[in-house]
């Protein structure tokens, strides 16, 4: 670390002398103070919550070289470990298609079946790679090489006394060749040496994972196609385990019409309910893999609250998405997605073991309850009013997600059903004043409840001179089991943008919280009552 910084300093110094350096600087500060509520009816609690989360990214550019560092100060954290350190650093050479970086970086191989590294701060998820990252890109060949380590902090253990940190040494390469006009073929191999901490801090379970990958791609103006398959071979002691993943899509595009059909078949670690209880098992899909979820990514708040959580170890499904614009002012979007497990399990009570039962057409999702079926239908219409920045948008969504509890005697089928109607209006009165209003109404049936309850969210934002935003969010529910027994939440917000590149915002009030998810990763955000502040700037 110290040697690396010394080299970095010398590098900057030598360049500074010539004064030909350019730079880019960004700051991100978030802070809050208030109370957080936890628990459910009968087991309620409240705790003081304060957080201070700051980081700054500095990047320097000199001819074909660039270098960067990130300094982070997080104490107390909102959802991460305490930090006061330089958490990122790199030096990069980039010249007409060839790029080599030493230090921290992220990487994506094709659609992420074998490798998709990213950071999501709100989830406490970070798979940045420290090591070597090389790319070569031309019109006919794309080549990637990575070699480095990931120290992955398991997000669900962040606030425990002993956060779980898994260590991966990754070595991987991938090549993509344009074999004919519009056609390309690619192949890659990722190898990982894994160290998983055990209950005793000094003992690690070691394993090796091989992820060979092949894909075939066709792209033209009106038709796209991709088929991507990866195998997973896991070696632990003397035993091997195997898994696989397939992702494919076709897309037809016309002038006013676009249709995309996606398919997934993820079998990275088929496990019975007993084995599944160990969510950190070494054979699972590993955190550096993040394939497409193949269901709709929503923009409305209530639709993001209880999402389908993809079981990457055992799930098949597809998604149909259509955009249609009959005229310049009207846009429609239709989306249908469905998924299920490949296998169901029956409990053999005599021998106390699980018997595996395969879905008859295992490539396609089943709607039988034993296979944890999921489906969602979404339809959205948007109409642009006369002024081009004014619009009205309305949608309707129905989602059904069944969890089948094979062990339960009386309640095997545990549903989560949601029906949601969001409406959004944006109106530009004149150049100095605009308004954004949205209303989201939602009816939910969530096990163990037997009846639907109702959620409603109203949001109002007034914008002055396109720089000052004043608004608020009001939410209420008929659910009797909210933490702290609350049924009503109100937050007021003020935001100001200074010089187009500094955004300051402050909010005060109570927030309902809920589940937030990204790419199949989720965490529960607890209800919060208090003050939040943020400042984002780019120089």
């Amino acid at each position, binding site marked *: 670390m*110290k040697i690396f910084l*010394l080299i970095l*300093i010398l590098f*900057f110094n030598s360049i500074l002398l010539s*004064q030909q*350096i*350019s*730079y*880019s*600087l*960004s700051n991100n500060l978030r802070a809050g103070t208030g109370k957080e509520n936890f628990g459910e009816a009968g087991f309620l609690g409240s705790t003081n919550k304060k957080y201070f989360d700051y980081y700054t990214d500095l*990047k*320097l*550019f000199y*001819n074909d070289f660039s270098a960067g560092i990130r300094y982070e100060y997080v104490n107390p954290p909102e959802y991460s470990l305490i930090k006061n350190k*330089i958490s990122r650093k790199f030096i990069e050479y*980039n010249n*007409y*298609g060839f790029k080599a970086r030493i230090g921290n970086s*992220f990487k994506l191989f094709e659609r992420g079946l074998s490798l*998709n590294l*990213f950071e999501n701060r709100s989830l406490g998820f970070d798979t940045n790679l420290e090591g070597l990252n090389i790319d070569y890109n031309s*019109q006919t060949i794309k080549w990637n090489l990575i070699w480095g380590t990931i120290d992955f902090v398991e997000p669900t253990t962040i606030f425990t006394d002993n956060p779980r940190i898994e260590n991966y040494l990754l070595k991987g390469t991938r090549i993509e060749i344009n074999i004919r006009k*519009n056609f390309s073929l690619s192949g890659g191999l990722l190898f990982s040496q894994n160290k998983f901490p055990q209950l005793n801090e000094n003992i690690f379970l070691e394993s090796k994972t091989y992820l060979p990958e092949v894909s075939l*791609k066709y*792209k033209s103006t009106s038709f*796209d196609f991709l088929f991507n398959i990866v195998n997973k071979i896991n070696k632990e002691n003397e035993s091997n385990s195997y898994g696989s993943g397939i992702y494919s*899509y076709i*897309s037809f*595009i016309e*002038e*006013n*019409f*676009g*249709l*995309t059909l996606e398919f997934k078949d993820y079998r990275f670690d088929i496990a019975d309910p007993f084995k599944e209880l160990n969510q950190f098992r070494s054979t699972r899909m590993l955190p550096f893999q993040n394939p*497409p979820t193949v269901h709709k*990514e929503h*923009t409305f708040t209530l639709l993001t609250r209880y999402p389908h959580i993809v079981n990457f170890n055992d799930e098949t499904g597809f998604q149909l*998405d*259509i*955009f249609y*614009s009959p005229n*310049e002012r009207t846009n429609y979007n239709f989306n249908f997605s469905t998924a299920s497990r490949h296998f169901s399990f029956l409990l053999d009570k005599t021998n106390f073991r699980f018997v595996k039962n395969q879905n008859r057409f295992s490539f396609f999702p089943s709607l039988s309850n034993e296979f944890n079926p999921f489906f969602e239908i979404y339809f959205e219409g948007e109409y*642009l009013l006369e002024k*081009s*920045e*004014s*619009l009205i948008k309305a949608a309707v969504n129905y989602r059904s997600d069944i969890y089948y509890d094979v062990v339960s005697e009386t309640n095997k089928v545990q549903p989560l059903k949601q029906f949601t109607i969001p409406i959004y209006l944006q109106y*530009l009165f004149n150049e100095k004043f*605009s308004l954004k209003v949205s209303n989201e109404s939602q009816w939910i049936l969530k096990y163990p409840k037997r009846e639907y309850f109702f959620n409603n969210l109203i949001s109002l934002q007034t*914008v002055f*001179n*396109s*720089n000052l935003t004043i608004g608020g969010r009001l939410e209420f529910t008929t659910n009797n089991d909210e933490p702290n027994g609350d049924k009503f939440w109100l937050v007021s917000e003020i935001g100001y*943008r200074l010089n*187009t*590149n500094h*955004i300051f915002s402050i909010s005060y009030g109570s927030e309902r919280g809920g589940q937030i998810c990204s790419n199949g990763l989720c965490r529960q955000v607890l209800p919060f009552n208090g003050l939040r502040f943020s400042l984002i700037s*780019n120089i």
Partner: protein
Amino acid sequence: MYRLFLLIILLSTEIFAQNSLIKNLSAEDIDGNLVNISSLNDKGLYINFWALWCLPCRSELKILQELFNEYNPKGIGFVGINIDSPKSLSKVKSFISTQKISFPILLDPNSQILNSLNGQNIPYSLLINQNGEIIKIRTGYNAGDEKYIRKDLDDLLLNSK
């Protein structure tokens, strides 16, 4: 001690620093062609980062199409860089086609370009002059911003040779 030394160096860097430069950045467009971003720059270039899940981004795209029609003949290039991750990436082309966006759209599914330009939130836009220097950074988009973007583009044209 070495941290203090580093801090001093960084502070001095700011003093000496000039405008940021865009160089050697390239990405695939929605048809799979590799595009060097600086090749789109004539008298200036407006770079806009967006994603399908971002409502303000979608509003800004419509405005940018109008500005593209007006300013591209005068020599200013426009490029949209989509940062949708693999979960929504396959729908981008379909969306772009129905919205009749005619300026180039590049794909940055791992946010590598966004990160290299220090973007944190989207929409995030950069205005580049003909020397490749960043002369304006815009974070976020509100209805009414069109007037300010237009003014920035007019200023850029006035100052270009």
